[in-house]
């Protein structure tokens, strides 16, 4: 008896094997009994007993045989499966080669989709997922002082020292401050003087971040104390390689930094990733005797193991309260704030942007899958005969599905392989596009994690786009196929079910495209608004150069003289219209703020103070930037040190302090120490030179003569618009000559057009807008080809039907109308679905949008119209073709 396959499957292979073994043993015993009866004349009962005795332990034999049998069966199945897979793959490869155009389109779509997804995933991985490159990074925290006006003040030296001493929840605490230093060689061949980015840090910083020197050592506690051996320096790996040829004997050498002599004690490893631009490190040596309200330190810490962030926050709050009681003059109303490192390094906005991009590229890949699914469905109808033949030859439905899925996974795998190349290129573009904006972008690469992601992705994609067509196509109806004389239409794929599936896919494509287009539209709208924000000054023709004089060599008097003379000399150059200087370069990192109060309203506590941005500027500053004077006067040479202390304020400040009054002559006071009142002498127009979005902030301008500052950004207004590069080069040379005429040793960086600095705050939105825009454009093309494909397919399928109609006297336009109305219906459904989806999703964009509501009806409407127009165009061509069908074809087709 042959056991049916279904039965075998139900009872499992163990049952089958056991049955066979039992039958075999039973046969043996019966044969033996028969022989014993016939040859030795035993009685049947005795014969059976004898047979069993000779056989031995029946149970044991059966067990051993079953074990061997089951193992053999498993091996056989495995090798059969392997053979089938090999067969399927071979078959799939032949199919791919047989339809090269189809294969190329699918692989191209997948390469772009998977490549883009992989590239964006590597971004997500670096920015959001991957832990920071320090030991136990989740325990690292960043600390600030807070007051009622702001929650991220730097800390003062005595406060930092008290925090560090009194806390019970942090394993270690460190302070740092970015500085720039002039490095002057101390030996022959050390090269020109250069300005270096450096950092003053406490000795605890390196152990806190888990870093050890690659050569030599880092700071000791003794070198980090005021009055200690603080003239020591640690070099960054880059500087060490670049300037000292990676010579380990650099340890012990003496360098001149900022005019002081520092002994090199160590070099950091290249892997040390904190503040990558920092090239030289010197001890901070915090002084407990310094002012408590002189807040300039950036503070970080490491939580003790097992201590929660909440516990550490409570601990710090307690310390801040005690300090406020102990030192009410300086610490009243001051608190402490602590956030995880990750949150500090990756701003929520950047995180949001990256996640939005990842979702967008995911939608795009889905769209690509829908498109490929549709292509496969259409192809399945032409493969009906082949599939029917395979079914007739005994391939079960499961077998057919497996074979079809093998084909799609193979396609996806090939697409993914090509996609990796695309991702490599895309990553290079990403790095070029958004270096400052995307944190840790330099760490982005196609590593093992990303490759694993791509592998899983390609497998999932293959199954995703392959499953529906495989299910459909495998529903081959042999009888129908035979009845149709093998016309080549597998009943499943071409039939009603297939058509519904194809329609659903096209609707999904349109909806996905709609969502991506709306996302991109919102970003573009927001970007344009941001770009056109009125900055309140005229950057055309202005070039900037940042100068820093060494503080220990320059007295305040010399600084005043230096910048006055430099301004005058440059101002006299041909082509230069005016020259000004500010201590806060536009859209730079330095955003000085100050707390003040209006004279006569003596504040009692910290919370009574007001807060404003401030700048120290030279008299020429306003003219160089074309900032309009609204009231009073600008600074002049008369506003010198020792004269009446004066300020110029912006309109926003004038309006909020003295609405309806004349601000000229009013007085304001700084916070803290007994400061003299300052008289408002002028009001200028509002400018946006720190941030493009957000509320306009109050700004106080102070005359440089009364507020000297060691680094200043010169703003040089030239005749005409922004000078071309060759022109800029000439100007550079002339300006450097004039500056060196005043101080021969001062490093002078290259000139930069102000327009270039203005692009900085736009880099992030541009990055997001460009990527989303590209995704949306691709989505539009995919959706259009999807609609075109399905309508063309419908027309081809209905050739006979349309021909009959035309032959019976139907007007061509009615055929056009029939096709168009179906296309329109699909489009409407897709647009409506996409509209709803976008309505739900765009709120995740809200934090990235400037002056644009996430449900901006103009953009929603415009996108819907655009998509509908494209879809109708894509339907128009097949409709035209349908109308042109020759009625005679209806009878000759086939």
């Amino acid at each position, binding site marked *: *008896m042959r056991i049916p396959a279904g039965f075998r499957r139900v009872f499992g292979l163990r049952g089958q094997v056991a049955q*066979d*073994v039992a*039958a*075999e*043993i039973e*046969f*043996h015993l*019966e*044969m*033996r009994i*028969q022989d014993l009866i016939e040859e030795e004349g035993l009685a049947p009962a005795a014969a059976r007993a004898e047979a069993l005795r*000779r*056989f*031995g*332990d*029946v149970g*044991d*034999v059966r067990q*051993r*045989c079953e074990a*061997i*049998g089951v*193992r*053999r069966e498993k*091996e056989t199945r495995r090798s059969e499966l392997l053979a089938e897979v090999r067969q399927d793959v071979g078959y799939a490869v032949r199919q791919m080669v047989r339809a090269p155009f189809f294969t190329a389109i699918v692989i191209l779509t997948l390469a772009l989709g998977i490549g883009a997804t992989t590239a964006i995933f590597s971004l997500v991985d670096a920015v959001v997922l991957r832990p920071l490159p320090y030991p136990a990074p989740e325990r690292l925290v960043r600390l600030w002082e807070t007051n009622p006006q702001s929650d991220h003040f730097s800390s003062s030296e005595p406060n930092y020292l008290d925090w560090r001493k009194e806390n019970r929840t942090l394993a270690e605490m460190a302070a740092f401050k970015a500085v720039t230093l002039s490095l002057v060689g101390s030996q022959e061949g050390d090269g020109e003087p250069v300005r270096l980015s450096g950092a003053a840090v406490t000795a605890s910083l390196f152990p806190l971040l888990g870093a050890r020197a690659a050569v030599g050592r880092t700071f000791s506690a003794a070198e980090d104390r005021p009055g200690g051996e603080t003239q020591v320096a640690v070099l960054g790996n880059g500087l060490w390689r670049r300037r000292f040829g990676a010579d380990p004997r650099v340890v012990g050498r003496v360098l001149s930094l900022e005019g002081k002599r520092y002994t090199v004690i160590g070099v950091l490893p290249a892997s040390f990733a904190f503040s990558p631009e920092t090239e030289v490190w010197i001890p901070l040596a915090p002084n407990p005797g310094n002012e408590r309200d002189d807040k300039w330190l950036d503070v970080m810490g490491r939580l003790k193991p097992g201590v929660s962030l909440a516990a550490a926050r409570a601990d710090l709050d307690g310390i801040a309260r005690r300090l406020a009681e102990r030192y009410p003059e300086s610490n009243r109303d001051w608190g402490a704030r602590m956030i995880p490192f990750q949150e500090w390094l990756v701003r929520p906005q950047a995180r949001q942007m990256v996640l939005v991009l990842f979702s967008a590229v995911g939608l795009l890949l889905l769209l690509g899958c829908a498109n490929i699914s549709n292509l496969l469905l259409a192809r399945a109808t032409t493969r009906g005969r082949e599939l029917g033949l395979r079914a007739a030859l005994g391939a079960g439905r499961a077998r057919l599905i497996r074979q079809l899925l093998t084909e799609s996974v193979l396609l996806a795998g090939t697409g993914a392989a090509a996609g990796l190349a695309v991702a490599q290129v895309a990553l290079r573009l990403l790095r070029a596009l958004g270096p400052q904006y995307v944190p840790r972008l330099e760490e982005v690469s196609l590593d093992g994690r990303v490759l694993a992601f791509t592998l899983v992705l390609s497998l999932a994609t293959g199954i995703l786009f392959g499953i529906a067509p495989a299910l459909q196509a495998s529903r081959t109806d042999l009888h129908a196929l035979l009845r149709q004389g093998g016309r080549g239409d597998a009943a499943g794929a071409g039939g009603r079910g297939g058509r519904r599936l194809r329609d659903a896919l096209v609707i999904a494509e349109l909806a996905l495209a709609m969502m991506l287009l709306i996302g991109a539209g919102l970003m573009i709208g927001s970007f344009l608004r941001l770009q056109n924000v009125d900055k309140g000054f005229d950057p055309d023709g202005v070039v900037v150069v940042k100068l820093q004089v060494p503080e220990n060599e320059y007295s305040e008097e010399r600084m005043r003289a230096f910048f006055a003379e430099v301004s005058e000399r440059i101002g006299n150059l041909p082509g230069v219209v005016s020259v000004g200087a500010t201590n806060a370069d536009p859209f730079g990192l330095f955003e000085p703020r100050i707390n003040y109060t209006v004279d006569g309203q003596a504040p009692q506590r910290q919370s009574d103070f007001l807060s404003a941005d401030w700048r120290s500027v030279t008299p020429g500053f306003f003219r160089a930037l074309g900032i309009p004077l609204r009231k009073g006067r600008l600074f002049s040479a008369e506003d010198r040190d020792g004269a009446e202390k004066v300020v110029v304020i912006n309109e926003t400040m004038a309006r909020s302090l003295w609405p309806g009054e004349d601000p000229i002559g009013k007085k304001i006071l700084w916070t803290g120490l007994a400061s003299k009142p300052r008289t408002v002498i002028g009001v200028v127009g509002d400018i946006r030179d720190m941030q493009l979005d957000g509320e306009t902030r109050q700004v106080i301008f102070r005359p440089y003569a009364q507020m000297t500052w060691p680094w200043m950004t010169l703003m040089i207004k030239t005749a005409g618009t922004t000078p071309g590069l060759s022109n800029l080069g000439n100007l550079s040379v002339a300006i450097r000559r004039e500056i060196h005429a005043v101080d021969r040793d001062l490093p002078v960086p290259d000139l930069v057009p102000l327009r270039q600095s203005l692009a900085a705050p736009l880099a992030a939105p541009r990055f997001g807008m460009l990527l989303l825009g590209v995704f949306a454009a691709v989505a539009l093309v995919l959706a259009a080809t999807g609609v075109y494909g399905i309508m063309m397919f419908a027309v081809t399928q209905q050739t006979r039907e349309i021909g009959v109609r035309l032959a019976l006297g139907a007007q061509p336009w009615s055929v056009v109308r029939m096709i168009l109305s179906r296309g329109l219906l699909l489009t409407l459904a897709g647009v409506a679905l996409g509209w709803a989806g976008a309505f739900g999703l765009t709120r995740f964009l809200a934090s990235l949008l400037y002056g644009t509501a996430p449900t901006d009806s103009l953009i929603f409407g415009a996108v819907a119209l655009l998509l509908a127009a494209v879809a109708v165009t894509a339907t128009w061509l097949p409709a035209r073709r349908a109308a042109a069908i020759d009625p005679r074809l209806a009878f000759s087709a086939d």
Partner: protein
Amino acid sequence: MSTMKMDLLQGTLDVLVLKALTWGPQHGYAVGRWIERTTEAVLKIEEGALYPALHRLERKGLIAAEWGISENNRRAKFYQLTEVGRRELQAQTVTWQSYAQAIAKVLQAAV
């Protein structure tokens, strides 16, 4: 083959089974009878021990099995030597002969 040398009884049985099948497809009972007859019952084995040996050889691919109808019209599992089994038998025959010669030599020398 080293496993044969290590497990003499099992190895012996395997070789005998292979040899028994050189005359054509047989079911287990017939194989047992043939061994019984040809060794003239010198090698006493329990009849049941034959079956694990048959199944093991089948799993190794030295013999192939198929259900068929026996001489007395009953369903029985027939075994047949495969090409691999035939080659294995030849190799084993050579090993056994040299082994037997060596032993014989040793024993004669000792007399």
